[in-house]
């Protein structure tokens, strides 16, 4: 019998693992010997997307660098829930200084390693959207423009969740936070404010910028591997749903990440030296309402009356992303 190569593996690359694939082709997270960079017992909320994404990123980076890794963490949920003194959930060399200086500290670690001739040890800076997009943004931009040899990862849950869900520069329009309450004629966060950190990063023309979500594991791991092949400043922006701040079911975390992509609200792409080189096309496009409805931070768009005017503006944002990033191409 001639055995033909069958390019269909039941779940393809959507699921975490696939017993029908060659072990070398399987994801890092499917491996029994994965690093578990952030281990059990951390105090993240039930269904935390950030805790999950941090493990995805650091396990992949550990595998890519053979464990030769130093992690610098900004203040935020990720820091607070992982290291309540004297316990630590980290199983990687890990350093925390202040809220706004993680990119600068990471640059410093990279400089120190270079000075000692230990450039085989790689540096990752990481933080939430508050520490990255707002408070640490000056330091981050400096790290980018100097092209320091650091991969900086932003886990974007779209508000300051640790301190009680205050608006950040990454909070999307119409979302309710503690500082953008659902009151008045235009409830929730204002349209036309905030910034896209990945696009700003691209403007620095650094070697690598990518976006990903906690729902696309294989894609996320591939991007970490790609980033670790390169030297210089690299930026990875990962969307991580937050059950507490978004008002979603604790089991909905992955689904919401998926819906953010499938509606077009969160474009998933890769850029090198300021140019988009790849996008993850939408598999089954859905209206934004599918993404908004399960989240209580958007509840005022549906109750007491459906605010179709606001939903249409959000849909227009999604449509623009689809056009701008060519998200409806062939897979």
């Amino acid at each position: 019998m001639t055995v033909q190569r069958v390019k269909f593996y039941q779940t393809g690359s959507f699921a975490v693992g696939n017993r029908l694939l060659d072990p070398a082709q399987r994801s890092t997270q499917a491996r029994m010997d994965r690093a578990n960079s952030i281990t059990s017992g951390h105090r993240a909320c039930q269904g935390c997307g950030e805790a999950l994404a941090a493990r995805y990123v650091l396990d992949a980076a550990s595998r890519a660098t053979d464990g030769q890794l130093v992690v610098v963490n900004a203040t935020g949920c990720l820091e607070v829930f992982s290291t309540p003194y004297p316990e630590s959930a980290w199983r990687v060399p890990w350093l925390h200084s202040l809220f706004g200086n993680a990119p600068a500290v990471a640059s410093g670690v990279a400089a120190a390693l270079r000075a000692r001739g230990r450039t085989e040890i790689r540096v990752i800076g990481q933080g939430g959207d508050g520490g990255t997009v707002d408070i640490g943004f000056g330091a981050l931009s400096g790290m980018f423009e100097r092209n320091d040899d650091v991969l900086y990862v932003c886990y974007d849950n779209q508000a300051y969740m640790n301190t009680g869900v205050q608006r950040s520069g990454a909070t999307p329009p119409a979302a309710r936070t503690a500082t953008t309450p659902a009151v008045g004629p235009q409830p929730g966060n204002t349209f036309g404010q905030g910034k896209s950190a990945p696009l700003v990063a691209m403007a620095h023309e650094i070697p690598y910028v990518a976006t990903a979500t906690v729902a696309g594991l294989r894609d996320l791991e591939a991007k970490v591997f790609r980033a670790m092949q390169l030297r210089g400043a690299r930026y990875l922006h990962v969307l991580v749903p937050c059950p507490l701040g978004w008002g979603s079911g604790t089991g909905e975390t992955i689904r919401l990440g998926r819906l953010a992509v499938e509606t077009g609200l969160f474009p998933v792409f890769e850029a090198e030296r300021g140019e988009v080189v790849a996008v993850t096309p939408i598999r089954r496009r859905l209206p934004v309402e599918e993404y908004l409805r399960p989240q209580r931070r958007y509840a005022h768009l549906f109750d007491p009356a459906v605010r179709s005017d606001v939903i249409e503006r959000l849909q227009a944002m999604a449509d623009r992303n689809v056009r701008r990033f060519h998200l409806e191409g062939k897979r």
Partner: protein
Amino acid sequence: MNTPFAITLRVGSSLANKTGAWRTERPVYVDRMPPCNDACPAGENVQRWLYHAEEAGYQEAWRQIMADNPFPAVMGRVCYHPCQTACNRAQLDESVGINAVERFLGDEAIRRGWTVPVTAPPAGTRVLVVGAGPSGLSAAYHLRLRGHEVTVRDAGERAGGMMRYGIPVYRLPREVLDAEVARIEAMGVRLELGHPVTDLAAEMRDGHFDAAFLGIGAQLSHRTYLPAGDSARILDALSVLRTIADGEPPRLGRRVVVYGGGNTAMDVARSARRLGATEALVVYRRTRDRMPAQPSEVAEAEEEGVQMRWLSTIAHAGRGSITVEKMRLDDTGYPQPTGELEELAADSVVLAIGQDVDRSIVDGLAGVEVRDGVVQVGPDMMTGHAGVFAGGDMVPSDRTVTTAIGHGKRAARHIDAWLRGARPARPPRPPLATFDRLNTWYYSDAPATVRPRLEPARRVSTFDEVTGGLGESTALYEARRCLSCGNCFECDNCYGMCPDNAIVKLGPGKRFAIDYDYCKGCGICVAECPAGAIEMVPEPR
């Protein structure tokens, strides 16, 4: 305590913090009944054998089928695959081509000469099986596997029953049937053919049999009063099919009318086309959707030029022509005559209006109940006469090969228990794995493969097999379309997606465990399990 400046506590791991205490609900792994298994009249564990086939473990897959059904190659051709009707994938794109994969596995086994060893120690008991059709051979096979001495007696010259004498060769080539029967014989089942059993009690006494299984089928063509002229040529469907099977086809003429709407009617009409009839017309009293024939058979018959005349009865048959009367359905769905008559040319009329059981074998057996023309059996397939079991078309049944094979298997299990004075273990029947429990995002888009089929133009001139088989790569592809509904297939989603590392991967084939010391009960694993094999339950107090 010797610690650095300003440090009062030793650094410890977060593992000291048992976050499992937060939980109010907990995930648990479950195994649900896949709809394919649930629908299989032979009780095959379809999903399990597909699982082996997905890994190209064809022999293991075949052995898994053989645990329930000794006729995979026959099944892959003649089974009406209720599994595919029930398949959840139909709601996604199209059902998994289970039947096609089964045929591939069955053919592969014949080609490679795979056999089933009898490993059970001799039971020291003898069982007589009457009838070498699907139910009898299935019973014999399963009894032999359990260590019993089995003798099969059949009036026919060759084994197979309706599989040989009822199903036309273009659906089931005889070398396939022969190979699967020979494999059962090679296991030590004695076949005594050309041996009609008329006095069951005497045969059991003389042969020192401890129990008997009857599977003689329903081989008497149902008769109906049909006003006919002396010279009208009227035949019954079973004898037509039987003479074709024996290689002496009857002269049906150029215009053949088949009366009836079941699978047998389709078989006769399609055979008539192959024997040279230019017109083959099926006359049926009711409407198409009320026909008992399988839609696939009707469609294939139509492709081959068989014509259908719904809502019609034959009022009179004469020489070279028949008179049909139009019917209409009344409020209860019963056909009523309208009085409208029409004359049609017909060289012969074949009656395919049902089959009856020859009950003479149970005449004089105390306790056996015959109702509605069939022998009554209990859930254990035993007749009212202790030690005499029955199955297949002679008991209440939908009269398919697969159901008969299932009867044989069930009877064998109960005969074995009865002979050993034990109660058969009834495997638990878990709740059904319904489509709404699946997370279908994770399955690749994969439309069904189509089996090659003989061109209709060529079909009407030969008795060659109509439907072709799948090659290795297409069979593998088709197997991999299985969604594994309700049962873990080790996709690692739960292991990979737990934010708390609370899922323990136990290794290939061993699935996973949940570390409740750390599981916070978020439910991501439940939501993202493609197969719906994890369930949230309230935390036990």
